[in-house]
């Protein structure tokens, strides 16, 4: 299997070659800004980021108008197979040999933590959209990493507190057994305890488990009111589907999908997914601009609408390119510093900013999945129950333990 696939080369390339005026990019190394989209291209998270993230990055380059501005931007992509060793090997090769300036997306927290370290060592830039662990802007924060779309603290805070406040005060966790699941479980547990709830038990399953009946049975035996799913993608889909089979909800327990994406809801179908409550930072049907983006995006992604991760890739790449333009450099450390200095503004997430710890902040939305009769068609899936303002949606800067925060 070839690790590195060049999917899209030189968006600006063709136009520049056709005689568009060349602006001297003296400070941009080798004259090209090279973006590496590193994602799960083939397994359980591929619909969340994957090829859709590549398409989103390409759209950001187009919308930035790189070609018109005479900036050469290239996009490469690779499959990290959800393995930290594979991910960091690709990152090293990209930085050392292929002259990649910035890596984006990287779902799977364990891989993202590894890539963040490599990026810091090499002085490049890392824009995280797919990974969730709040440690990326906490104890593992880095001057070269920006965490864009969401994190475990935000999910726990949004979904967890809403559920505890509405009476779900005893919890049992079914947790994916790696960095992400542990972080999500930890952050949610804190929220549950803080709001006066109790955690009755937890079970950890291997990543990409197929059968959850055994874990569901343990959750059932715990008699907890809420079964918190601290997993993602295919694991969440199979948990929810099999919970329906075992009559979990009918017998009085409720599921809390701590991290659910629109692609998961699409895969489950509304009959199974209806009534689920969770937190997202992007939904395609929020306003005219998000709708326009989704309509453009879907044809480039096999008809599938954007997830918040893919929207985050678009938004992060756009802001990165603006910072490169403003700072006239593609030196990773300097660009990330510039990104923190400039306020963010884009059609998908609106106005916001990047904090000193690398956390990008914007509003989050507590959503509920519609009943089949309420939905007008494919992807009309959410009712927005509440908007959480940007300054409350994410962990306060001082509480993360990031060494960059003074």
């Amino acid at each position, binding site marked *: 299997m070839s690790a590195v696939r060049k999917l899209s080369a030189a968006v600006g390339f063709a136009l520049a070659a056709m005689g568009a005026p060349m602006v001297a990019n003296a400070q941009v190394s080798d004259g090209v800004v090279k973006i590496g989209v590193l994602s799960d291209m083939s397994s359980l998270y591929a619909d969340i980021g994957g090829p859709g993230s590549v398409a989103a990055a390409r759209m950001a380059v187009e919308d930035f108008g790189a070609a018109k501005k005479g900036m050469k931007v290239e996009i490469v992509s690779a499959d990290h197979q959800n393995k930290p060793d594979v991910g960091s090997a690709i990152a090293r090769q990209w930085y050392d040999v292929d002259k990649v300036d910035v890596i984006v997306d990287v779902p799977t927290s364990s891989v993202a933590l590894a890539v963040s370290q490599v990026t810091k060592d090499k002085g490049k830039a890392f824009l995280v959209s797919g990974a969730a662990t709040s440690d990326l802007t906490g104890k593992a924060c880095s001057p070269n990493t920006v965490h864009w779309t969401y994190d475990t603290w935000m999910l726990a805070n949004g979904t967890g507190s809403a559920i505890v406040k509405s009476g779900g005060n005893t919890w049992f966790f079914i947790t994916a*057994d790696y960095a992400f699941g542990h972080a999500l479980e930890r952050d949610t547990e804190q929220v549950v305890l803080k709001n006066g709830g109790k955690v009755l038990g937890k079970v950890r399953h291997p990543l990409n488990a197929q059968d959850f009946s055994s874990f569901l049975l*343990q959750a*059932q035996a715990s008699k907890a009111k809420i079964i918190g799913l601290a997993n993602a993608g295919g694991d969440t889909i*199979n948990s929810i*589907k*099999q919970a329906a089979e075992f009559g979990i909800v009918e017998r009085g327990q409720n599921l809390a999908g701590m991290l659910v994406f629109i692609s998961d809801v699409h*895969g489950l179908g509304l009959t199974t997914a209806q009534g689920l409550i969770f937190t997202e930072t992007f939904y395609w049907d929020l306003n005219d601009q998000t709708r326009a983006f989704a309509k453009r995006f879907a044809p480039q992604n096999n008809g599938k609408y954007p997830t918040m991760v893919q929207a985050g890739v678009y938004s992060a790449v756009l802001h990165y390119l603006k910072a490169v333009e403003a700072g006239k450099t593609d030196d990773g450390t300097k660009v990330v510093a510039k990104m923190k200095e400039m306020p963010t503004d884009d059609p998908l997430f609106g106005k916001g900013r990047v904090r000193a710890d690398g956390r990008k902040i914007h509003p989050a939305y507590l959503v509920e999945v519609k009943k089949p009769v309420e939905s007008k068609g494919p992807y009309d899936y959410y009712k927005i129950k509440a908007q959480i303002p940007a300054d409350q949606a994410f962990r306060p800067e001082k509480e993360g333990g990031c060494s960059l925060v003074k």
Partner: protein
Amino acid sequence: MPEIFGIPSAALFGQLLIGLINGSFYALLSLGLAVIFGLLNIINFTHGAQYMLGAFCAYFLLNRFGVSYWWSLLIAPLAVGAFGVLIERTMLKPLYKLDHLYGLLLTFGLALVIQGLFRNEFGSSGLPYPIAKELAGGRNLGFMFLPNYRAWVVGASLVICIATWFVIERTKLGSYLRAATENPALVQAFGINVPRMITLTYGFGVALAALAGVMAAPIYQVSPQMGADLIIVVFAVVVIGGMGSIMGSIVTGFGLGIIEGLTKVFYPEASNTVIFIIMAIVLLIKPAGLFGTQK
């Protein structure tokens, strides 16, 4: 409530039953692999992809043509089995004379191609397939809630496994098959069309995989990598049972399902490695597998 090793006994019974359910998938899949390996000497790495094709076939039959689950149980294995026959005729046949490795590489490559094509088309989240009306719901056994569908899966796969074992080990047709693998030239001399028998055997093994796929569709998502995730475990089952041993694969399939189920209670983190640990131990003590015979 009485406890066994600190786990309430009721919970333990539940886990044993769930292990049995998962074991029936292992048994059904490893059975097909064992038949193909035993009679063709081909290590069929496409098995996982063929299982996935069975599930997709059921999905299309339901959503495009409104064909029910019950008819899918018949049609999908036939369709995927026919596809298997085509593969055997056009690609596997020339490999019989060569080393095992060539068959393995070809089937492995085929699996990657098929899974890749489906992933491009359908993505990785998979597609939903509802449980047939007749099997929806479940019953309370006191110690656990058993969905009717899972009970059906255990029953059906036990019947299929035993029937297959019976045909191969106890009937005249089975004896031809076994003879043809021992000494094809001699059997052909008795006027039996050995190449055709081999083709049909491969088709049958593939059909078994597709049948397992249809049975899995309502439990798991119908997704392109559903087979890839399972096939490694199933290979371990076949190796532990003894390559090519029919009874071995059935017993080991159910047995390992139960052991895996118990691991999920006592030490869930190890539930996806326990089978490979057992495989390593068995290979050290009995290199031919539990039921295998050294040739």
